[in-house]
């Protein structure tokens, strides 16, 4: 059975070009880049090249790039660094729809005595900029807002928000794990202090992340150890991962236009066709400015896990924000923050495409999904033909 992989916000396939770039570091180029001999030194040159490629994708300088192990490590490093360099400040501003890497960290910081303002969102997933501005105080050490939401693809106006923070001397971090490679990002001239992203969301392997720290931003390391990454992140470099993410960033730069044209059109067609074939649905975040590859569709009166398992029978891979699939007993915190009614929240399915997605992939979903929804609704005690839709 062919795998129809439409879960690229969870992780992506490693691009063949990326794998090829990495392989020598598992064999011939095993040297330690910190070594004095030229055998190790040649590896350092490859790391420099990768750093330049990563910087180029987001309009940064190479010395603003720190390699980490994953997006979560970058997020943790950024927020904790901001608090460490502002020991007198005890307030953090974030949102209610952040990834757990920021959300749970902030919840832990509350227990350590910090005050956290978690901004709410409207039904489209947007924050209220006036409310945001009012939340910034003299006591605020850092703002951490995601650039794009992993579940709905909704994009926050982080550049505008960062400028407001900078005026008040507040450090601004963004979790851009879902945004980098999907929408153009240029760090020159925006007010962001720190930005996190991860390799495995843009066709590099798992185990490599990036933290951008703007020149002149005070910084306190999270991983303490050797002098690697200019003493900002101790630990021997993940040389294959770094070479891989360098190549992946170069590829992402070359493909970003395709992502915003062909992939976006595929996503739009998927949404459109599902909407004409299935009643009582809601596109979560559909009215927001969104990533080109993501759609989050709620099917009223059915539960997401069933949809995923029935699609699995056809090799279709997607995600759901239902309670049964969220690892807790409540539906996704993002959909709850958006006020999505329970009749809809439990039946949400996220499809996230990539430049590897094809017309055939989308055709298969359009063919298989409507009967799956009909079948589950037939079994649902809440479903009646012609039910009034709870969507706005």
């Amino acid at each position, binding site marked *: 059975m062919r795998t129809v992989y439409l879960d690229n916000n969870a992780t992506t396939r490693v691009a063949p070009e990326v794998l090829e770039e990495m392989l020598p570091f598992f064999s011939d180029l095993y040297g330690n880049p910190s070594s004095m001999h030229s055998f190790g030194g040649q590896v350092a040159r490859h790391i420099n090249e990768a750093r330049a490629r990563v910087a180029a994708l987001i309009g940064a300088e190479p010395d603003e790039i720190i390699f980490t192990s994953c997006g979560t490590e970058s997020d943790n490093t950024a927020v904790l660094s901001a608090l460490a360099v502002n020991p007198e400040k005890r307030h953090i501003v974030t949102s209610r729809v952040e990834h757990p890497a920021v959300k749970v960290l902030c919840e832990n910081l509350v227990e350590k005595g910090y005050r956290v303002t978690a901004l709410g969102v409207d039904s489209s997933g947007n924050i209220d900029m006036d409310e945001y501005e009012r939340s910034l105080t003299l006591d605020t050490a850092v703002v951490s807002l995601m650039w794009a939401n992993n579940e709905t693809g909704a994009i926050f106006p982080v550049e505008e928000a960062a400028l407001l923070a900078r005026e008040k001397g507040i450090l601004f971090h963004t979790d851009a794990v879902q945004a980098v490679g999907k929408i153009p990002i240029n760090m020159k001239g925006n007010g962001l202090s720190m930005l996190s992203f991860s390799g495995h969301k843009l066709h590099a392997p798992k185990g490599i992340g990036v933290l951008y720290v703007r020149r002149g931003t005070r910084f306190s390391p999270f991983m303490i150890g050797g002098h690697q990454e200019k003493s900002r992140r101790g630990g021997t470099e993940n040389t294959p991962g770094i070479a891989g993410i360098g190549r992946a960033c170069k590829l992402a730069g070359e493909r970003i236009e395709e992502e915003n044209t062909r992939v976006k059109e595929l996503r739009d067609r998927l949404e459109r066709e599902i909407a004409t074939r299935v009643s009582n649905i809601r596109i979560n975040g559909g009215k927001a400015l969104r990533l080109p590859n993501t759609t989050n569709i709620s099917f009223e009166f059915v539960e997401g896990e069933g949809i995923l*398992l*029935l699609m699995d029978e056809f090799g279709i891979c997607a995600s759901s924000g239902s*309670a*049964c699939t969220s690892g807790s007993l*409540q539906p996704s915190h993002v959909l709850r923050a958006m006020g999505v009614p329970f009749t809809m929240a439990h039946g949400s399915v996220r499809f996230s495409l990539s430049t590897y997605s094809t017309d055939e992939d989308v055709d298969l979903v359009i063919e298989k999904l409507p009967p799956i929804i009909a079948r589950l609704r037939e*079994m649902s*005690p*809440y479903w009646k033909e012609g039910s009034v839709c709870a969507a706005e």
Partner: protein
Amino acid sequence: MWEYNDKVKEHFLHPRNAGEIENPDGMAEVGSIACGDALKLTFKLDENKRIVDAKFKTFGCASAIASSSALTEMMKGKTVEEATKITNQDIADYLGGLPPEKMHCSVLGQEALEKAVENYRGTASPKKEGQIVCECFGVTDKEIQRAVKENHLTTVEEVTNYTKSGGGCKNCHEKIQELIDAVYIQPIEEAQPAKSTRLTNIQKIRLIEETLDKEIRPSLKHDGGDIELVDIIGNRVLVATRGACAVCQASQQTLKGFVEWKLRELVSPELVVEEVAQ
């Protein structure tokens, strides 16, 4: 991804008895859309008062649908009296087991069956008994204690797996722990009716052996464990744990909270259970 066994998957992919019986003899609706699973159960009796047909409509995950399918299959052919003996564990066993986090799906089935029988007998009470403990999922103290007793639950996490209570805001975790404690640590006076006549040593030993055999081992074996009586010295009952108990981190709690409590209740309030390595 949940690790569903083939039987659960089969009942999810090909559910038996999906639908609704018109003019049923008994029916019930349990759960709610807010909680993420809900089940509408209907059944019909034949002239001999046996359940001739049962149907379900379920909103919920794969294991909720599979549990509903299993329940309706199990009900058919039974009298109402026989059907009421089906427990949530029976439903899980019928399916060859459910992941621990999904046991609440089998509890939902049992609850629907009880409510449908109450509806048939005309004894349905409109209100839930007891005090709501978990506000997120509307679970009462009575429901939690019943699940603890019937399934020998010892941790808050297990209670959440079986009843969903405590799975939301977590504010009730302390209260749930208190309810668990109350089940295992009952006041000795209460649990000790008219057994205080003095026993001879031989009587005591026999009674301890009998209690271990009839009251304690079946429960432990249910969870894959066992217990062996090593010696009795005065009021000290020396035992060794076997099977799953020997490697279980909660075995101390089981020994004190369950084994000792049972022995004190049924033999003598002065007994102390001690574990010896064997």
